[in-house]
């Protein structure tokens, strides 16, 4: 910090081409998507080459951007505010105001860009082998590429509308990919469910954006010269003391509902396990490592809004931390009753997303974002591992109990990578999960959320236990079912059976025969296109934690340095729009509004939570700013000041102990249950009522699906819709038709009674006379034209005569 003070006379932040042009990154896959759609089928590799190439291109660009961002951070003084690189172009205008599309690149952006581009590349390479021969191979790559375009666009988004654009494109791709094998009803229903559930959450996204826009627009326009959609604008606005508490709270809650839907948080998590109906690469990419973290990303992206709106670090628990906490536990419990390996991983994903949310809700922003980063690697690896098993060993089945077991001998690479990733997931030192998950739990406690720290530790125990169960069932014991080379008949697949085998079934019996070969060859290791991604991901699962290895001291906390935005009070004019050009933001320290440094800040208002047990020892070199606690007087804040728990080996040791306890107890239980068939344990749920009820409760997924599908959806789709339609047909239309009929009836009545009886009655008398006269005149109606003419002229002549007489 001392060095910083001397250097900070004038700091020029470095930038670079990749940073300046990060907006190109989503364009690459978008173009590639168009190419696949139009030319894919004619290409030698059926369009997959476009997909893979574009993802590698995006990866290169992302890596470039990340490198230059690190340069930018390293070049600046420590703790200084690193301005994001913002660019906009007019996208639409309304009320004379131009609203933009563009890029907002900061540490969070480059992190997620890198993750998405990286995992997408690996998954596409993996899919080359995994989906070989699929009838909709081209479609698959098109959707996958479009997904990446959507996600990357969401990540670089400069404003909320652009974020929504990416967000919904991801939803669409999720729909298409889950329903990839849509010939089967279950798949298309799962796809529909996923889209529908996330769309329900999106009500919040739309309303939240609207609320925040109108609440913030005046302030942001005046202070920063950006619209109320702008991410930077919203962040600064939230911390400016301008927002009314109602508006920002409503906005934050609404946005969080969207995050609940997208990130599979309780109570909208039910779509995510069903989404496993899609091909495994899809589960790996969309439904574990990237798309489902979109909700977490949203919260992290406009964190100040949530920070202020939901009173994070305030007294008591808040919405986010509660939802996160509930999700961790309920999802982890559900993982125990699954027999489908992908569903175990799906619930595990839900649970891990719960950790991220809980972390964000408890003010542990950095550990949560770091957990996104590490989780992406090990969870993608686990899913791809599961795919590898089903592809090569278990005859396209994902049933652990029925078709797996003892595979460690046949699939050494898959096994090793699986174990590494499992350990990372469980948070065992020194695997990557440890450095992120343990930090979350630690910081949650540090910020005063003790209950949720216990929830986190419980979650860790459960995670260790269900992953041990899954590992045991898959790799240990003796081979069963398809893994043992048994032949599978179609009817052998129950409702829970994987649908992946459909991929090959759809193109005829020849292909079916070919994967009978798989079974007869017995289980074996997959090809290099599959194992290479596994190895790469496992390596990262092992090592990526060291990017932010808090235990080894401050110098190891690189991720924190690069990614966490600095909670400085900054001059709005100094940073107002880095508009292209040189792309260098100047922050000069001699302006009066520059950072409140040093002692001043130390004496600033103590933070609301955990101020008593503040341990400054780990925060040396950092100063505290008032952002998030006080209204900045002259200048704006872009991030709230957060605490960082000091690392203690004792605490880490405790959580390690819990994890090992979970593994051990689960292992013993599994051996007893599955290997030894211990009479006391087998069938326990049928004998013990309480356990049976609990088991049933879990198997039925807390009856949430029943509630959604049978009660809510069915009531809307059936009685309510039918009722509305009945009203339409019988009442509204009835009124119209009734008006018509009654007009007719009235007319008839009038005709019959008024006209025929009354008027006619009066007329009848004269009518008789008229009839006589008519009879007399009848011959006149001769039907002869000449006659009529004569009459006409005759009467005209008479008329003229009368006229003449009268006038004279």
């Amino acid at each position, binding site marked *: 910090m001392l060095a910083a003070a001397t250097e900070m006379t004038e700091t020029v932040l470095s930038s670079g081409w990749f940073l300046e042009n990060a907006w190109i990154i989503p364009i690459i896959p978008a173009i590639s998507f168009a190419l696949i759609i139009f030319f894919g089928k004619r290409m030698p590799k059926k369009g997959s080459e476009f997909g893979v190439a574009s993802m590698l291109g995006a990866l290169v660009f992302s890596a470039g951007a990340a490198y230059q961002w690190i340069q930018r951070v390293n070049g600046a003084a420590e703790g200084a505010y690193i301005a994001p690189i913002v660019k906009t172009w007019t996208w639409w205008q309304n009320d004379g105001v131009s609203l933009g599309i563009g890029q907002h690149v900061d540490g969070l952006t480059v992190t997620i860009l890198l993750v998405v581009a990286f995992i997408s590349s690996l998954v596409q390479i993996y899919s080359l082998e995994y989906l070989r021969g699929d009838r909709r191979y081209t479609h698959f790559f098109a959707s996958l590429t479009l997904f990446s375009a959507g996600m990357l666009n969401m990540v670089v988004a400069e404003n909320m509308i652009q974020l929504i654009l990416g967000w919904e494109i991801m939803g669409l791709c999720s729909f298409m990919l889950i329903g990839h094998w849509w010939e089967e009803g279950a798949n298309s229903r799962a796809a529909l469910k996923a889209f529908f559930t996330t769309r329900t959450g999106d009500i919040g996204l739309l309303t939240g954006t609207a609320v925040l826009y109108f609440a913030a627009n005046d302030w942001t326009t005046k202070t920063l010269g950006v619209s109320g959609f702008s991410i930077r604008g919203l962040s600064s606005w939230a911390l400016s003391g301008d927002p009314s508490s109602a508006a920002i709270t409503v906005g934050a809650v609404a946005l969080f509902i969207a995050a609940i839907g997208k990130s599979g948080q309780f109570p909208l998590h039910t779509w995510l396990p069903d989404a496993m109906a899609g091909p495994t690469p899809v589960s790996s990419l969309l439904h574990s490592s990237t798309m489902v973290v979109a909700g977490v990303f949203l919260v992290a992206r406009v964190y100040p809004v949530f920070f202020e709106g939901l009173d994070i670090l305030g007294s008591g628990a808040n919405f986010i931390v509660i939802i996160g906490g509930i999700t961790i536990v309920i999802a982890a419990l559900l993982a125990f009753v699954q027999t489908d390996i992908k569903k175990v991983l799906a619930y595990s994903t839900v649970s891990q997303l719960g950790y991220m949310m809980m972390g964000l809700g408890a003010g542990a922003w950095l550990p949560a974002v770091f957990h996104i980063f590490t989780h992406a690697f090990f969870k993608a690896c686990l899913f791809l591992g599961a795919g590898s098993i089903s592809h090569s060993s278990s005859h396209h089945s994902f049933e652990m109990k029925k078709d797996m077991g003892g595979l460690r001998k046949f699939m050494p690479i898959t096994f090793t990578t699986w174990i590494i990733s499992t350990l990372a997931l469980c948070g065992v030192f020194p695997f990557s999960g440890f450095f992120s998950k343990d930090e979350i739990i630690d910081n949650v406690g540090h910020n005063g959320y003790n209950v949720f720290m216990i929830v986190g530790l419980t979650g860790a125990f459960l995670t260790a236990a269900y992953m041990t169960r899954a590992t045991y069932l898959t790799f240990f014991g003796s081979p069963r079912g398809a893994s043992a080379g048994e032949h599978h008949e179609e009817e052998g697949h129950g409702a829970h059976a994987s649908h992946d085998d459909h991929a090959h079934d759809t193109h005829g019996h020849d292909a079916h025969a070919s994967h009978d070969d798989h079974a007869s060859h017995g289980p074996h290791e997959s090809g290099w296109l599959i194992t290479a991604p596994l190895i790469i991901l496992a390596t990262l699962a092992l090592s990526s934690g060291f990017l932010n290895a808090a235990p080894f001291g401050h110098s190891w906390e690189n991720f924190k340095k690069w990614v966490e935005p600095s909670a400085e009070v900054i001059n709005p004019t100094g940073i107002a729009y880095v508009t292209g050009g040189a792309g260098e933001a100047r922050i000069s320290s001699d302006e009066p509004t520059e950072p409140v440094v040093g002692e001043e800040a130390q004496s600033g208002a103590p933070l609301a939570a955990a101020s008593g047990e503040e341990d400054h020892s780990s925060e040396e070199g950092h100063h505290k700013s008032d952002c998030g606690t006080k209204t900045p007087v002259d200048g704006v804040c872009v991030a709230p000041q957060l605490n960082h728990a000091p690392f203690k080996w004792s605490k880490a040791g405790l959580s390690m102990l819990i994890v090992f306890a979970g593994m051990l107890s689960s292992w013993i239980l599994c051996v007893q249950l599955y290997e030894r068939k211990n009479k006391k344990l087998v069938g326990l749920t049928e004998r013990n009522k309480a356990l049976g009820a609990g088991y049933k409760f879990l198997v039925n997924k807390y009856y949430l699906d029943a509630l959604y599908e049978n009660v809510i959806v069915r009531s809307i789709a059936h009685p309510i819709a039918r009722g509305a339609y009945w009203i339409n047909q019988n009442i509204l239309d009835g009124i119209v038709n009734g008006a018509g009929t009654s007009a007719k009836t009235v007319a008839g009545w009038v005709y019959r009674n008024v006209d025929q009886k009354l008027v006619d009655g009066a007329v009848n008398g004269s009518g008789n006379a008229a009839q006589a006269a008519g009879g007399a005149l*009848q011959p006149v*109606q*001769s*039907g*002869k*034209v*000449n006659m009529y*003419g*004569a009459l006409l*002229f005759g009467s005209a002549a008479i008329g003229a005569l009368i006229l003449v007489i009268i006038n004279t």
Partner: protein
Amino acid sequence: MLLNQFLILGAVLFCIGVYGVIARKNAVMVLMSIELILNSVNINLLAFSLRNGSVDGHTFALYVIAVAAAEVGVGLAMVLLMYRNRRSIGLDELSEMKG
């Protein structure tokens, strides 16, 4: 001014026309008679127009000519159809409109 002569010419034409309409059996002749009547009216209009020194009468006359042309067009078409259907254009035989 020769107003009287014009009016007399008009009256004569009119009478011929009325005679034709009443007495003739041939549909075409009846049509021609109607033309005569209309033209007699035109003559009257023009005569008065000249006398009053305004163009209103001219305008009306033009209008009448236009209407007459349309009328003949429709009338002849009807006669043609009649001939097709009945092989005759005698008006005596057309008595379906009898009341």
